[in-house]
């Protein structure tokens, strides 16, 4: 009887979640943000292909160098996409007063929050996929299809994981701050400037900063194994560092998501 009622509850929740997912997807599709994120993800690799082609500047000798150089900008795409798709996803409901309609409805708030996160996560993964796809197409056009390395899939999967962490930060800030503009701005500057500065300051005073996930954005490029995409004295990453990166990035993604969840569940509509 209990088991049966639990299954009934879950079934009801699943239906609610499905409706919310569809609703959130429609909202994000109608807004220009997704289009903007996808557009930027498509245009940037094409610029790297067409500018040397048209200017006669020349391409690197091998596909690996070309990819490594292009991938230097993937962090920017990640932060920009997370900022656009999740930077105001929660507080916008409060500032537009739509939370007053949404939250009193006979449905779980957890389902609303999960659907918001899932839709923004999958949309940003899709934008990132477009970036990788267009880079792969550029490689195929310039160096041949066989030159597309297997590492691209690994790099994409790590980049998508890193994106989840950045998205969770954006999600957390949108739950914590009241102003959508402030949370979006803080997402961008926080991940691009404040966290790297914190890492640097901690390094100066001799405190371990390896728990800050922004330390590991370079792994997206390092997976390609080429030194050309690196800054400074090139150092190869070890398997242990890779595992540590995965642990830190995944934990950050989960912690920031749960923190946002906790904040929003305790809020009044």
């Amino acid at each position, binding site marked *: 009887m209990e088991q049966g009622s639990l299954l009934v509850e879950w079934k009801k*929740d699943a239906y609610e979640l499905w409706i919310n997912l569809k609703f959130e997807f429609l909202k994000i599709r109608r807004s220009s943000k997704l289009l903007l994120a996808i557009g930027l993800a498509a245009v940037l690799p094409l610029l790297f292909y067409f500018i040397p082609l048209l200017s006669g500047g020349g391409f690197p000798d091998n596909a690996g160098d070309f990819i490594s150089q292009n991938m230097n900008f993937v962090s920017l795409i990640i932060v920009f996409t997370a900022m656009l798709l999740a930077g105001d996803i929660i507080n916008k409901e409060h500032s537009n007063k739509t939370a007053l309609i949404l939250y009193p409805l006979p449905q779980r708030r957890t389902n609303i929050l*999960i659907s918001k996160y899932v839709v923004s996560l999958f949309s940003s993964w899709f934008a990132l996929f477009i970036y990788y796809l267009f880079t792969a197409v550029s490689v195929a056009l310039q160096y041949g299809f066989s030159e597309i390395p297997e590492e691209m899939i690994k790099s994409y999967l790590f980049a998508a*994981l890193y994106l*989840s962490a950045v998205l969770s930060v954006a999600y957390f800030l949108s739950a914590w701050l009241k102003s959508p503009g402030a949370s979006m701005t803080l997402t961008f500057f926080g991940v691009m400037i404040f966290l790297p500065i914190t890492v640097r300051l901690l390094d100066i005073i001799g405190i371990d900063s390896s728990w800050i996930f922004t330390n590991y954005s370079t792994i997206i490029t390092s997976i390609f194994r*080429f030194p050309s995409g690196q800054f*400074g004295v090139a150092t*190869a*990453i070890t398997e242990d560092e890779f595992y540590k990166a995965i642990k830190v*990035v*995944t934990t950050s993604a989960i912690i920031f998501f749960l923190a946002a969840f906790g904040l929003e569940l305790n809020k009044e509509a």
Partner: protein
Amino acid sequence: MESDSKKIFVIGLLAVIMLFNLSINSQVSGFDNFPTLNQDLTLPKLEISNVTLSDDLPEEGQNVTFSVIIVNHDNYSVGGLVLLATIQQIVLVNPHGQTEEEKPVTITNVTLPVIPANSVYVYTGYFIAKFGQYTFTTILTSTLVKIPLSNYVFTFEVLSPPVGDWKGLRIAYSWLFLTLISLFLVPSIIDIFYRKQAVRKIKE
């Protein structure tokens, strides 16, 4: 008029005397017999035509064999040559935003055997590859004088070992989805628990 011609004659005479003295003083005594070094030092006509690596894109830790192809364009054999090969890591920008120079590492500094006239000599050496972008430089010296055509420079890259296995990524994604699934499932369990407690209290 007469005095003018006298003056001109005196000035002319003085000029001739001065010119004569000048021509005498500008001549160095024994000039023609003084030995001069007006001929360039003749260096052997040796050229490093190519340097090849056993692998174009070596991997870190790999033993890379390099071959230096030396061509002797002279009609006589050359001995006592020293081959120096160095690699220097290219640094783009260091973490502090400054460019810095890495010191070149000598991988070969050997005296070569006599290279016969009009022949090609191949020197083979090896080094252990370390991750990075490098400039490879070779130079031949004959009695400490660098032979210009032997300065051969090229860049190469050393790849890092393959990194990132699928297992770690699979685990990471599983944790992410498990968190989302548990957040979806847990509220119903809590609800039923509280409902059950409430029913028990009513019954009591």
